[in-house]
């Protein structure tokens, strides 16, 4: 557990961020920061505003008020692709992959930001474009090998076993060479063995120099992996600190106990 080095400038800073849907504030005046090299988790009961916060941070939603800074630069309410260009890349839950492409192609496409050729260059198949293509394939293979998908890289993504899909999602995120990777529930639906493996994987990514923010339900995994944790309830930040601090926080315990009965309703979605 590395304590947050408060001296250097934080990689991402969220200040007084608010998002309203109609009259309802899904995220209400939330402020926190993440330092380079950190793993920060955002947790909270259902409906606490975690995924809204996640989308705001990755520019997939426009904020109602408040700011998001990345390396000191205001990136609030930009387009997602601009955020990606600056180095902020998010992943999705497992089903969001290119289902009709092979695993390898999924990752090759995701190398988009690294291409040097222009769009006309692609069209006419210039030398640069062809070189890019070769490099991307190599790099994609490397990423897939690293994430343990080397054996299935030529399988069409929709036919991959469930466990591999999430890793593929992360591989897609990695391909864009992020400085900050936002992971959307990376451990959901995993058994303890798989979770342990996934935790090692996420740590490994951090060790490659990528800062990580993750939104997660699995408490034990969160406590295990996080450097720091931000807790939301009803859109507001109610606590922030190291896992040990959070585990003993009265407010957090109250928030979870009071809502426990509702945490079941997630299981009823059948959507692929």
């Amino acid at each position: 557990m590395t304590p947050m080095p408060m001296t250097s400038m934080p990689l991402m800073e969220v200040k007084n961020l608010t998002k309203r849907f109609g009259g309802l504030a899904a995220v209400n005046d939330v402020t926190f920061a993440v330092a380079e090299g950190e793993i920060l988790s955002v947790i909270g009961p259902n409906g606490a505003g975690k995924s809204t916060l996640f989308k705001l941070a990755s520019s997939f939603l426009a904020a109602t008020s408040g700011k998001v800074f990345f390396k000191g630069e205001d990136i609030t309410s930009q387009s997602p692709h601009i955020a990606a260009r600056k180095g902020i890349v998010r992943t999705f839950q497992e089903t969001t992959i290119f289902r009709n492409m092979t695993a390898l192609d999924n990752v090759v496409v995701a190398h988009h930001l690294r291409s040097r050729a222009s769009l006309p260059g692609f069209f006419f198949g210039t030398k640069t474009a062809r070189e890019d293509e070769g490099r991307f394939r190599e790099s994609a293979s490397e990423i897939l090998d690293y994430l343990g998908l080397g054996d299935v890289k030529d399988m069409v993504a929709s036919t991959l076993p469930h466990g591999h899909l999430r890793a593929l999602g992360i591989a897609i995120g990695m391909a864009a060479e992020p400085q900050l990777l936002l992971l959307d529930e990376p451990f959901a639906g995993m058994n303890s063995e798989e979770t342990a493996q996934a935790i090692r994987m996420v740590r490994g990514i951090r060790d490659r120099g990528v800062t990580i923010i993750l939104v997660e339900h699995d408490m034990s995994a969160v406590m295990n992996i996080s450097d720091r944790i931000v807790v939301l309830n009803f859109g507001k930040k109610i606590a922030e600190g190291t896992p040990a601090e959070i585990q003993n926080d009265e407010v957090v315990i109250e928030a979870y106990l009071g809502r426990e009965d509702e945490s079941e309703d997630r299981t009823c979605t059948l959507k692929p």
Partner: protein
Amino acid sequence: MGQVLFNGMYTGVQYSLIALGLTLIFSLMNVLNFAHGQLYVLGGFVTYYVYGGMKLPFFAALLASALTLAAVGCLFQIFFFRPVMRRSVREESSMLLSAGTAMMVESLVLIFFGEKHRGVPAVVNGVYELGGVFVPKGRLLVMGLSFLCMVAFILFMRYTKPGRALRAMAQDSETACLMGVNTARYAILGWALAAMLAGIAGAILVPISGVNSGLGNWISIKTFIMVMIGGAGVISGAIAGGLVLGIIESLGYHFFPGGETYLIIFVGLIVFLAVRPNGLMGKAV
């Protein structure tokens, strides 16, 4: 001006009734029913034959149109849409299928009912004049009937078991399925209802406007406009869209007597959708 507003209301109420059926199908199965205008025409022809030809009372004709069209709706779902949608969930398939059914219904209507414009004698004759506004009785009857149908439809959706099941399906058909709604059966019911609404709209209007086999496409296009204004898949949106289009159309004809009205409506629609992509009341897509 009073006349213009009355015209707008009158047109708007009819439009709302037409749009209801389209939006119902859209919310239930995410299908854009191109044949909606053709179903309307078919409903009109049934009434023409029962009321105009067989000389039965108008309400019998209305009932005949409703039942015939409900049957056609069931057949559509059972023989066309269910098999296609079971296999392919792509929007393209269902859309082209419905474009195909639109052409089919139109050509069948042409073959069976002929190319002529058909009308029936007015159900009620006479005109009220209220403060300079001419209000023909026939039109009041149409407005009243349309309004009744809409109220009946809304009550049905809100307070009966099938209505609630349909609404659950529109919300989320998988969850509805989990909750024990027989979605296959209710999809048929949904189609029957939607086609019936189109048929009733057609039938109500025959004594006023008459009907001919070529009307369908333009009615469908207008219905699409209403649904885009109001927001697809929401009952309130269909009603609002219909009224708004009716009034805009009436105002347009008043202020731009040339052919510009619909050009302006279309351009306005593009601008409107750029600002409010989901229409007035639509759910996010």
